[in-house]
């Protein structure tokens, strides 16, 4: 059976070039970057090169990059770190209602500490309205955190415009760029951000390593105290191989982006157009302000998990925002924030493309999908053909 992986927003495999770059640092070049002898200097050099490369790609300075264990850690470090550091300036934070749990649950924990959080609504396409943002600003607002692009529905937010307004008011701007680093051109100055999180495994790098851009002059209370690593912003012996892998993967993604983006948009649109031919089906998110690899749809009258199981039986890997796949009784908070009714949100399907997906695979998926949806609808008491 053909196996088709269409869940690249969840994770990606490590590219062979990336693994080759990493391997020496898992074996011969195993030194601790804090050590003074040759092995240590070797590791230090690798970290320095990786940091310089990552900084250059996102338009940052060498000292503005901190390596972490994940996108989620970067989000926590940015949000809690800034909230704690600037708590005497104010206790109000603005975010959106469709953030990743790495941001949303960090906000919830700060609320318990007495911070006030405004969750901006989104329109039916998943876009934040800049005027809503302006209305939410207060004298005691210290931080804004809005994701660059949404992981479920792929909507790309007007970060540059929001960041500019935040800066005019002297407010720190953070963005979770986990879905966009590697996929889009990400430049911290063009985006007007002070803090930017991303994670290697979303762009063919290893799991367990992320990064946070911290604009010069922004201070953060560290989450992890210990040694002097990462200029005391994040203690713990550096994950040299992982960091080398992150940088190698980002370099490749940056270099090959022009080649892959067009191909991915073509396949994405083919998939969307093909799926929408099935009756009672709708696209989630924006048709234009959309990640090149994201397809998110809802099929009425059926439930997402049974759809995923059927696709899996045909060798197709996708994901859903239904309650049964989230482990709770509620469907995805993102789909609900877009204004979808619960029963519609339960029937969601997300397919996210990668650089190696082919036109033939998309044809196969489209061919497989229609009969599955039909069969599940025939079984559904909500459907009356």
């Amino acid at each position, binding site marked *: 059976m053909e196996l088709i992986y269409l869940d690249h927003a969840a994770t990606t495999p490590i590219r062979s070039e990336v693994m080759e770059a990493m391997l020496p640092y898992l074996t011969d070049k195993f030194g601790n970057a804090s050590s003074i002898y040759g092995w240590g200097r070797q590791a230090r050099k690798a970290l320095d090169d990786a940091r310089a490369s990552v900084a250059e790609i996102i338009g940052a300075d060498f000292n503005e990059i901190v390596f972490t264990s994940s996108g989620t850690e970067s989000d926590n470090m940015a949000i809690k770190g800034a909230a704690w550091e600037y708590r005497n300036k104010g206790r109000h934070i603005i975010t959106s209602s469709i953030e990743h749990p790495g941001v949303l649950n960090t906000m919830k924990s700060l609320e318990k500490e007495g911070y006030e959080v405004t969750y901006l609504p989104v329109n039916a396409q998943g876009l934040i309205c800049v005027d809503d943002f302006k209305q939410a600003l207060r004298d005691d607002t210290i931080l804004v955190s809005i994701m660059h692009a949404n992981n479920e529905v792929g909507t790309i937010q007007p970060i540059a415009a929001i960041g500019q307004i935040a800066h005019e008011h002297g407010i720190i701007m953070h963005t979770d760029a986990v879905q966009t680093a590697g996929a889009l051109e990400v430049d911290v100055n063009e985006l007007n951000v002070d803090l930017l999180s991303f994670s290697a495994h979303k762009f063919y790098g290893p799991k367990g390593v992320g990064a946070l851009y911290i604009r010069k002059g922004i201070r953060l209370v560290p989450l992890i105290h210990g040694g002097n690593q990462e200029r005391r912003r994040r203690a713990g012996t550096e994950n040299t191989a992982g960091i080398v892998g992150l940088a190698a993967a980002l370099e490749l993604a940056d270099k090959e982006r022009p080649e892959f983006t067009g191909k991915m948009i073509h396949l994405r649109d083919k998939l969307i157009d093909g799926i929408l031919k099935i009756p009672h089906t709708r696209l989630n998110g924006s048709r234009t302000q959309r990640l090149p690899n994201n397809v998110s749809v809802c099929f009425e009258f059926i*439930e997402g998990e049974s759809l995923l*199981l059927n696709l899996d039986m045909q060798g197709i890997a996708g994901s859903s925002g239904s309650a049964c796949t989230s482990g709770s009784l509620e469907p995805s908070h993102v789909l609900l924030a877009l204004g979808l009714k619960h029963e519609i949100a339960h029937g969601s399907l997300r397919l996210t493309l990668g650089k190696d997906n082919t036109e033939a695979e998309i044809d196969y998926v489209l061919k497989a999908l229609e009969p599955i949806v039909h069969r599940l609808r025939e079984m559904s*008491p909500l459907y009356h053909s």
Partner: protein
Amino acid sequence: MYSNKVMDHFQNPRNVGEIVDADGIGEIGNPRCGDIMKLWIKVENGYIVDAKFKTFGCGAAIATSSIITELVIGKTIEEAEQISDQAVVEALDGLPPLKMHCSNLAAGALKKAIADYRNKQNVS
């Protein structure tokens, strides 16, 4: 995560459909919560001679619906109403912890279908 038995009933659900002249109909669940099950039973001389279902829900919801139709066909009404959610789980060789409520769905739909049958008997 699902047993082979669950996957079998999910892939090849038994007795999908409706019974036009059903003697009892039970519906349970809520589309808001992502699962709704409807069960039809046909009763002759106190025996359930046919059962059919339609379900909107996850793999476990479809499998529990399917197995309960198999469990009830051929049983008397009195025997059928003894079928517990635990019996449904056992018949499927278990369910993942997060999916246990799906077995309540099937047993609950059956109880409602039997109540509906009794109701109709009393009326006529």
